[in-house]
């Protein structure tokens, strides 16, 4: 159950990361697209220079989002999973040995070394 939930969350999160990266690249490309002056009108140039700034802010915000997302992903990986150790289970406890040792322990307690 937990692995199912984990994988679903993980997949959506990874998809989100992919789309964020895509957006960042797109915005970066946009900046260069509008960076040229050519024979544009004054108004368009003014708007474009503001677009450059807003795109830059957007890129920064998306990068910050990425950090949050990866943090969430790590949290899920660390807290939402259960590790199953192999080999440890097969090890049987030697009950007889424990029994013997424990009885020895009680004997040690009872045994008085000092005679008054």
């Amino acid at each position, binding site marked *: 159950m937990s692995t199912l939930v984990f994988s679903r969350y993980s997949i959506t999160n990874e998809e989100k990361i992919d789309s964020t990266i895509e957006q960042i690249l797109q915005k970066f490309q946009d*900046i260069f697209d509008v*960076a040229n*002056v*050519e*024979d*544009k*009108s*004054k108004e368009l*140039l*003014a708007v*474009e*220079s*503001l677009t*450059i*700034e807003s*795109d*830059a*802010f957007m*890129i*920064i915000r998306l*990068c*910050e989002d990425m*950090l949050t997302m*990866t*943090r969430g992903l*790590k*949290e899920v990986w*660390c*807290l939402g999973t259960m*590790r199953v150790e192999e080999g440890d289970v097969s090890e049987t406890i030697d*009950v*007889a040995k*424990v*029994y013997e040792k*424990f*009885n020895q*322990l*009680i004997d*040690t*307690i*009872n*045994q*008085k*070394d*000092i005679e*008054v």
Partner: protein
Amino acid sequence: MSKYTSRYQSFHSQLTSRDKLSVAELIPRILQERNSFLYISEESLENEIEHKNSSEAESQEPDNVFAQPDEIDSYELFQKNKVELAQQLNSALNETSLSLDFVSLLLSSVKVNLGKSTMSPHLTQNVPPGSLNADRLSKYDDPNDMQSKVANLGNGWKGESIEKITGLFRNASMKLNEQVIKEKTYWELLINVLDHDEVLYKTRDPLDNSRAIGVKYGYSASGSSYRDEGNAILRKDPSSGAISFVPISRGRAGTKICKYIKVRILTKVDDDYLLTGQSLFDKKFAGKNTSAIINDIEKARYFVFQEDLFYHLTREAKGLINYNILIISNKIIIEVDNELIEIESVVFDEDDEEELNNLYQNTNQLSSSNNRRAEAILIFMNLMLCCFYKYNLSLKQKVPTAVTKWKQQNSHPLILRPLLGHIRHELNVSSLRSVLKNHIGAFKQDLELELEVIQYSNLQAQELDKSFENPFQKAIEAPCTTFKLRCKRRDGRVLETVIDVTSTEIFVNLVLNLNVTKYDSGSDCKQHDNGANVLQNTFYDLNEVDECLNWTIMNFINQDSTITSADG
């Protein structure tokens, strides 16, 4: 028309009120009319009056010209201004609506609806929308010249923007880089903790209610019912991203006082108790794993167990106060057979190496002779608490019924009782052995006596079968040692006395089960065949057994063989 009448009225009133004016009012008035007193002389005034009187009949006009600006009173001025303002407002409104109409008409060619909504009804009726168009006219004659100027402006603007975003990117990347480094440290440490097989969970920091990751270091999930569940927060240091271990108890964060349990054994020597052994604190937290955080977790885990253990010990000790057990603040003292066993909860002080290493412990042979026993007692107590945890856990895993719930709430670990029980049992066994030896000594002339001792006879069946269901059976069951004393008469009759030395369920009360059987011959006795039960009783005191046994054997010796056989 109205203007004229009002002016006339004001002039008339001025003429009538001239004589009433005060000097202060009069002088500025004269100054205004004649400009200056410099040009006024008596003669000129006389002339003027004469001239005035003669021309007064002719016309009033010249006077009227002088007086006109002053004759207008404030009310009239206000009225006049008001009318003017209204006119100007009207024309402004007119012009505005005209320009609005113009703009709307211009706009209607591009956005029809928007233009229509602001057009005046008159315009919409007479002019079709979209019928006005405009072209931009350049004030530059040379289009190339204009373009190059705009291009320069554009270069400037864009250069500025790009410079600005470069700065933004630089700052943001520095900030993000710092954060990434912090995150890296944080998660590396966390992975370290996770690799140590710790249980991590999401929680909130009670300090500022921010999100945090907690670690379960205690035994609450492993069967412990102690009030301290052993939760802690891995608090992130906002400046470096490093994590620190902050235990939480009762919803509050903070450091705890670490206490560990020390066992001391004092032995009575010449009416004085001397220290003959004590347990060693040999827990080393700084193991091969050098991570400080894991160290902290291990330490907290160790001390929460010790705390839990002492809590259960005191609870158990309360029920055993009648059996020479004392509880003094953080110390439990068990007095048994010339010995004091002290179980003390000691505050852990990392700097006090002398205390921790027990430097003064092994000063001489006497003071260290019981060290092994003290260690064994400590290990025994720890083990028993672990067993209790395991038992609790098994209860939790069962289907919850009223019985299991009751058991969960009313289970208490067996720690002190078996400890004390075994020590007492050993004493009882040795006392009984000496009693029996005395009997053997006393009757060896008349009888052939044979003593067999089976220690822990209650466990023998298990040991023979090699079926160890519970390796800690010895501590759970009340110990039982069986003494078999066979008395053989010269005529071959055998009296077998079986004494079970055991205790009640709480381990501390002595119970002696005596069972005496008579056989006709030694072979019958070995096969437990044809035996006649002589006596079967339970005693709670060693002296009673002693007396009873004495009487039984005496009776056996003195019995006539014929009567005995008839009895048999």
